[in-house]
């Protein structure tokens, strides 16, 4: 297993960079993970990350991308509810990159 050093603590991650223990997550950790990828998290990023975390709280899985897009549109308007906008924020893909920063587990099953 790999680790990231953060605030003097070793945080376990898998080969794709997802944290293994969801309780390790803090907003500062999300910012640190993004920094490692050369991204500074803005309010716009946090709108997505917070939605993902809320959805996970309710359902214990990450939402399908279509739900993310539609809910973003509902909450923040059509300018933010489209995949182009989300890819702009998370170039590796919102499903992967945003979920990783949000501290959600890696998707499982035939997905």
């Amino acid at each position, binding site marked *: 297993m790999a680790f990231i050093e953060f605030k003097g603590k070793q945080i376990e991650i898998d080969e794709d960079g997802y944290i293994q223990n969801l309780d390790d997550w803090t907003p500062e950790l999300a910012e640190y993970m993004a920094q490692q990828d050369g991204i500074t998290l803005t309010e716009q990023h946090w709108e997505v990350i917070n939605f993902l975390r809320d959805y996970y709280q309710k359902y214990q899985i*990450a939402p399908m991308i279509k739900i993310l897009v539609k809910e973003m549109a509902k909450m923040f308007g059509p300018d933010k509810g489209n995949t182009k906008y989300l890819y702009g924020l998370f170039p590796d893909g919102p499903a992967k990159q945003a979920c990783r920063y949000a501290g959600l587990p890696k998707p499982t*099953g035939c997905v």
Partner: protein
Amino acid sequence: MEKLKDFAKETNQPIFEINNDELISLSPYLDEENDSYKAPDDWFDKYDLSLDGFSGFPFINPSEEEKEEIIKKFLNGIQKLLNPESNWTFYKPFFLSLKHCVKCNTCAEACHIYVGSGKKEIYRPNFRSEVLRRIYKRYFTISGKVLKSFVGADIEVTYSLIRRLLELAYRCTLCRRCALYCPVGIDNGLIARELRKLFSQELGMAPVEVYKKGTRLHLQTGSTTGMKPHTFIDVIKFIEEDIHEKTGKKITIPVDKKGADIMLLHNGGEYLSWPDHIAAFAILFDAAGINYTLSSETLGYDGVNYGAWYDDVELARVGLRHLQIAHELGVKKLVIGECGHSHKVYSVIFDRILPASSPLWNIQRESCLPLMWEIVRSGVVKLDPMRNNFPITFHDSCNIVRLMGIVSPQRKIIKAISPGTFREMKPNGTYNYCCGGGSGFAIIRSLNFPVFRNKVSLRLKTKQILDTFSDVLNQDIPKVVVATCSNCKGSLRDIMKIYELFHKYKINYSGLADLIVNAITDIPPFLNLEEMEE
């Protein structure tokens, strides 16, 4: 590698390594940089990459004592595989395949991994079987015990050998193309699968994606995706709204409808990754007036059964639950959606698993494909072939064609709903090549296993798709590869992303139901081949 017995060599260095320039060429379609992959240095001590420099098993090396225990359990496991009572599910084809190989190696050329790798000895379908055969001879026959190397029983079971054999059991996608070509009917795919079973059932060694986050998660939460029943209900509502927005039709997707004719069992991954595919089935079945239902019972909405790839106990646990749910709903038939291994499990393997007296025999178990052809053929849904006026090819799911022999309905459907734009891959049907992601390959993501999959296992299919469309590669012409299996679609998605088939050549992929619904005249076109979703 000089001799087969090097397989037992006690070293943490790979006994063989893949060279990029020896892999089957994707020229002239793609220029690949010759950047040979190397695992991080510290992995060689930390993990076990001693087969070919790849591994899908991130467990730490056991102590010497534990190794002794593993050797004992391994040999005991072989004994169980050879016993018709403990291996009542697969003993006969396993034992016959172990016994009667004539070593002609016809199987080698049939294997997409062997050919894709540039014909590396170690990936020959018969190589792993031969290791097992020699172990069998050495430890389980009198002549082997006494005469050893004189009778081809010159292999000592060491921990290193066991560990390499574990990896090698996962260098085969169980596609069974080798079995089709074998002149005596040896099933090397089954031998690989039985080895996986031994590792899982006797030694607790199985990829985390198929056990802990596969069948275990399936039985605990209801789905290998972790989706629970209340999430499923929410997703169904979302898909209904989406259908309404997209087509103007208000469709209620039937869930838990007692006494329906059919319970439809989709691969659970579809709900999250390809929700349009679920929508396509809902639109098609609604338009055709099919009396069907989905189930929101735990497990009832995720039809995968990963046990088929590695473990009989898990296979039976998941499968019996699926059939029980269908039985409780009072349906006549369990219809399997577009999922290859689920076809195999419910239409074929469960004939072996169900006890003779079980009431579950009353439920017919069928593929969705003949039913879909019946809908298209009957004319009950008005379809316009011109809607699918783009080059279309079809990728066969190994389990559906080779294992079950369902070859023609899918082709009749595509021909009926396209204006002569269908072209076959070569070879196709029962002779198809695996997508490269079968038997869990598409979902195993541990350590550097995906590097092996992407570089070697997906390679021949990538070449085949490019060859099929070689005359229409132009970016202005959208093209589609249709597949009737989630695992295959996952592989196609990887192929198109990694080898940039969409970006460079606008080659997209789709399920079959999606292509049919694209041709329904009274709703707007359903497919968007101009975009590829994540």
